[in-house]
């Protein structure tokens, strides 16, 4: 019995390591700037997805979603921030978000959507819509 349970625990641990490795692999290739979209798990469609604004950064900095997904940014900082798309047309642009304030945008069309905080332009992020 005891041996059996130990084996089961070992098994789940191994699985966990596998999953963690896969996740890491995805994150690494993305960070390197390679078109590694295929390496990560399929994006969830339509479900609400959150980007955290914390310590003057967006997390995750690069977010992949399926077309039609609503992305919500939540400001956890003591300092106000904005979410402004980088392109000339400003596809999306939030008002200033004070602490705990949120901004949502529905990404209907596939594409890459880089954005930044117009108050602190060193803060940058990107939404990749598939």
């Amino acid at each position, binding site marked *: 019995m005891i041996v059996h349970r130990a084996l089961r625990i070992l098994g789940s641990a191994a699985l966990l390591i596998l999953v963690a490795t896969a996740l890491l692999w995805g994150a690494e290739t993305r960070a390197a700037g390679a078109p590694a979209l295929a390496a990560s798990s399929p994006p969830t469609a339509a479900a609400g997805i959150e980007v955290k604004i914390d310590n003057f950064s967006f997390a995750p900095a690069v977010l992949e979603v399926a077309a039609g997904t609503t992305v919500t940014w939540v400001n956890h900082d003591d300092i106000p921030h904005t979410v402004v798309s980088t392109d000339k047309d400003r596809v999306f642009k939030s008002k200033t978000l004070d602490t705990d304030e949120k901004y949502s945008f529905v990404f209907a069309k596939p594409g890459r959507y880089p954005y*930044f905080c117009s*108050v602190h332009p060193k803060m940058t992020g990107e939404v990749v819509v598939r």
Partner: protein
Amino acid sequence: MAEIDTDSDTATAQDRILHDHNHDGVDRRGFLKCMAWAGTGTFLVLQGGVLKSYALGSTSEIGKAAAQGGLSFVQISDSHMGFNKPANTDVAATLKAAVDKINALPVAPEFLLHTGDISHLSKPEQFDTVDQILKSASAKDVFFVPGEHDVLDDDGKSYLERYGKGSRGKGWRSFDKKGVHFIGLVNVLNLKQGGLGSLGAEQLEWLEDDVKHLKSSTPIVVFAHIPLWTVYPAWGWGTDDSAQALSYLKKFGSVTVLNGHIHQVMQKVEGNVTFHTAMSTAFPQPQPGKAEGPGPMKVPAEQLRSVLGITDVNYVGGQHALALVDSTLA
């Protein structure tokens, strides 16, 4: 307040000062000692672009300077009216304390410079509160430049309506006081992704024209919110096109650049240019790279006022000297 990091930009500035280009016999050893943070009150005199130091006990010398027909003014910065979180839930009280400090100066300043982030969220009631508090200052004239917190959501329109009288463009301006030429610059608008503060082509053109006809012996004071020297780019503490602005000021023997934004005293000397940042009246920020991000630094309540403060500036006419004194609210 900690000591200056030996491998920072500031250290380079120190090395630079070690060379006595002017052969004027100014003792730099004493100066270097006080170069490490002026936050507790250091008295720096700029003479022909070279700094000279005094112990803060000698504030009587400032009084002497003013009595000789000098010019005295005070810089305040980053009052962030509307901010209400640790370490300061009452930024109105600390701004009042700053005004008390100003009113207690041995020599009453002729005017105040506010180097931006007047408000926390650009709200009319936040500007109202600051205006109200500053009314009780002994100096009645206040010249403002905006911080990024003052131009949220409307590209600085409401800021300009309130504080822009007599200014050009998006709020930049120049004026003369007792032979000193003051230039207020705006570097918090139209910021580009991944970039730093920005002055923009229109303002740079105006600046070039503004100083073109001035004699090179005219002392220049430039004030702007974000530092016009690169303090720490990773946190956005610098201005992308500041080098161009400074190139127009090369001919002048004495240039003093006063900034805010980083909520701590930092100083650097480069040739005839002295760069100086002021403390906030609201909350401190960490030293560059000493925290995960540049957000408000939380300090024990009893320490708060020792990391907030004002900068008193005195110009001694005819002696080509500007003295900067940083004093905390403690």
